[in-house]
């Protein structure tokens, strides 16, 4: 057993650090703190395009599709360095979700057609899984796709139904979508995985504003939407297999250890600047203990993640243990934002202006206090999405403990 980096790994770290330092856009510094619902499409894509040019956009993909061939440790270092520099996170929908599904289950034609746009960032993807009646119980989804063939339109599906909570669908060019193709089969067996061009007639996107005031999620209505049959991934009615494969990928990135480390550093800076009776808040027993507990939980999670990664590098895929990363990772993220609200005291009450604000709004208090409460409210989503934390507990109970 060894947890230290080798000299080659350290050299790699320096190379990465130097690359980020000289290439990450100055104007986006600190952008990682802003929720995505507050950033423009181009802002979100800036870093993506730079990494694409460098050839570092998908370190986790096989080399033949554009991957870097890095070891698991190098990928870990890459994540660490990005978090350290607070680069804005890349959108997972193309790079971590649908991309791997396409190169794993798609045909040659589909790989040629879709992978380049995912890599370059020219195609913005969104995830059409959840429906109003199907959240935790995703397999109950009802959006219907009926296959039809005629002279004029060729082989195609007609899709009817609706998706909800679709993150950043307002910017999307494409949606990967779970649809029901066999209403008579068992719930999991009649589902297909379809790629839908968001410009197709019959699609309406309606914003949902979250309690922190952000426009991050949407409802997507699908009314007689015509989708060419060549946009079906894999086999008809086998979509659940691909969906589960994708969710496994989603979970392993969700622990967010490196970014939480940085967030704790930020929290400590706040607590050092905030004074109680003239002395830093960070020096009080109550607060420093809470931060210490957080750090200890985070280091446990970090090693748990490393153990998971090490197992993965030996060819074992992310098993149900990945649920530990989701549960603990999100709890820690939420506690950090909660402590930040505590740390800034009275100025936590201030509503920070939204992106679309004129810039003339008055925002009182130190810079670090702006938006702390909104971050806290926004982060409540992390224990709900990607399979709620209750569902993750159920997975561990069933799959690991055998209950």
């Amino acid at each position, binding site marked *: 057993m060894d947890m230290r980096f080798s000299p080659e790994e350290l050299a790699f770290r320096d190379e990465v650090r130097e690359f980020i330092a000289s290439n990450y856009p100055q104007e986006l510094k600190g952008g990682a703190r802003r929720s995505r619902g507050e950033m423009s499409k181009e802002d979100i894509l800036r870093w993506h395009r730079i990494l694409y040019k460098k050839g570092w956009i998908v370190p986790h993909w096989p080399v033949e599709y554009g991957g870097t061939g890095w070891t698991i440790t190098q990928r870990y270092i890459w994540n660490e360095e990005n978090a350290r520099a607070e680069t804005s996170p890349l959108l997972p929908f193309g790079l971590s979700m649908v991309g791997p599904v396409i190169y794993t289950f798609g045909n040659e034609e589909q790989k040629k057609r879709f992978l380049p746009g995912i890599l370059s960032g020219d195609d913005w993807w969104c995830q059409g899984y959840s429906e109003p009646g199907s959240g*935790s*119980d995703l397999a109950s989804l009802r959006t219907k796709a009926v296959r039809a063939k005629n002279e004029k339109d060729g082989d195609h599906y007609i899709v009817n139904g609706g998706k909800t909570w679709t993150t950043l669908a307002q910017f999307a060019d494409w949606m990967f979508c779970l649809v029901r193709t066999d209403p008579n089969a068992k719930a999991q067996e009649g589902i297909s995985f379809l790629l839908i061009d968001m410009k197709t007639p019959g699609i309406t996107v309606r914003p949902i504003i979250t309690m922190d005031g952000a426009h991050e999620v949407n409802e997507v209505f699908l009314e007689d939407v015509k989708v060419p049959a060549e946009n079906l991934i894999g086999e008809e009615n086998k979509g659940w297999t691909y969906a589960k494969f994708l969710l496994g990928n989603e979970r392993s990135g969700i622990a967010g250890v490196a970014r939480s480390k940085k967030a704790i550093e930020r929290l400590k800076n706040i607590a050092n600047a905030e*004074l109680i009776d003239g002395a830093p808040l960070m020096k009080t027993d109550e607060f420093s203990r809470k931060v210490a507990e957080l750090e200890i939980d985070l280091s446990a999670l970090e090693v748990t993640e490393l153990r998971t990664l090490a197992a993965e590098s030996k060819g074992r895929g992310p098993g149900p243990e990945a649920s530990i990363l989701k549960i603990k990772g999100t709890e820690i993220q939420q506690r950090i934002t909660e402590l930040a609200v505590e740390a800034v005291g009275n100025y936590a009450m201030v509503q920070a202006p939204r992106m679309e604000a004129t810039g003339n709004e008055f925002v009182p208090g130190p810079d670090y206090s702006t938006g702390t409460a909104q971050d806290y409210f926004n982060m409540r989503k992390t224990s*709900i999405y990607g399979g709620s934390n209750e569902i993750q*507990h159920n997975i561990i109970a069933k799959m690991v403990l055998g209950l």
Partner: protein
Amino acid sequence: MDFSFTEEQTLLRNTVQSLLADKYDFDTRRKVTKTADGWRPEMWAQFAELGLLAAPFSEELGGLGGGAIENMIVMEEFGRHLVVEPYVETVVIAGGFLREGGTAAQQEALIPGIVGGETVWAFAYAEPQGRYNLADLTTTAKKDGSGYTINGYKAVVLGAPWAQKLIVTARTSGGQRDRDGVSVFIVDKSAAGVSTRDYPTVDGRRASEITFENVKVGADALIGAEGKGLPLVEKITDEAIAALSAEAIGCMKELNTATVEYCKTRKQFGVPIGKFQVLQHRMVDMFMAHEQSVSMTYMVNLKLGESDVERTKAAAGAKVQIGKAGRFVGQQAVQLHGGMGMTDELNVGHYFKRLTMIDTQFGNVDHQLKRYSEAA
């Protein structure tokens, strides 16, 4: 031992309930908080008309003869409707200062404006460096002839954009955090040298940063004895804490009702999600958190008149309880509503935000725990 309400108190509750049911549904409230003003002066006028603004004042002061329990009743109902109008600031705090520390002349001149709904007040006490320490003041009031000249800066003064008058704490002597040397003043917001910068708060209200630059007030602006204001400030903020506790139990009650209702009707995996035992136990914990908070709210409201130590323990204890319970109930209500709980459209997130801010107001859990253990 008797925890029942009098007939008058029940009547008061019914009055508030029917007014708010009628005029303060969630959608209306949401629209109002998004207007430029952010509140409804006509609601304030209605409160006055129905006697709510008079409820806690004695009859000699032109009130209806109630006290803390009346405030508690009003505030619990206000909490259930997320009322933004500045009852705590005007009736509980400014009213409290005038009742406890005002001269007969001040009471005669100013209480009718509160009772009648003509004057709205705000409490300018916190400063950026002071956090929750009521004595940590850099704002000064210097003797100037028979009056005073005030200089300083006050942070996050809730309700100030709506107010005409301010209660201002300032140092007339002593070092920055001394208990002695704190004085309390009445200042017109329109007085020369007072400047305000207004902004919205995350719970849908409004606040201001206020600068005092050579603001001249007369000797009659002083409430209580010069330099001896801190005990009064502590007493009145405890009264405000008692009122906020009541508001918080109103918020929690609505969240718990909404959550239980939602879990009975929302179906996943073919059953109402309330059938999952883990969620049932969570809702039981939410229920208990609310009940414990009701108990502490009753206690603090009943103990406001006791010795400083008893009152401090009751207020700090209540604030700790509602701070923790409010967080727990708020977070769980959002969680159990799933994606719906995250939306601006649903009231759940708004109660959660208000409860979060109640924890911050007048000192969060850590601050009040410390205060409790120092008093005990």
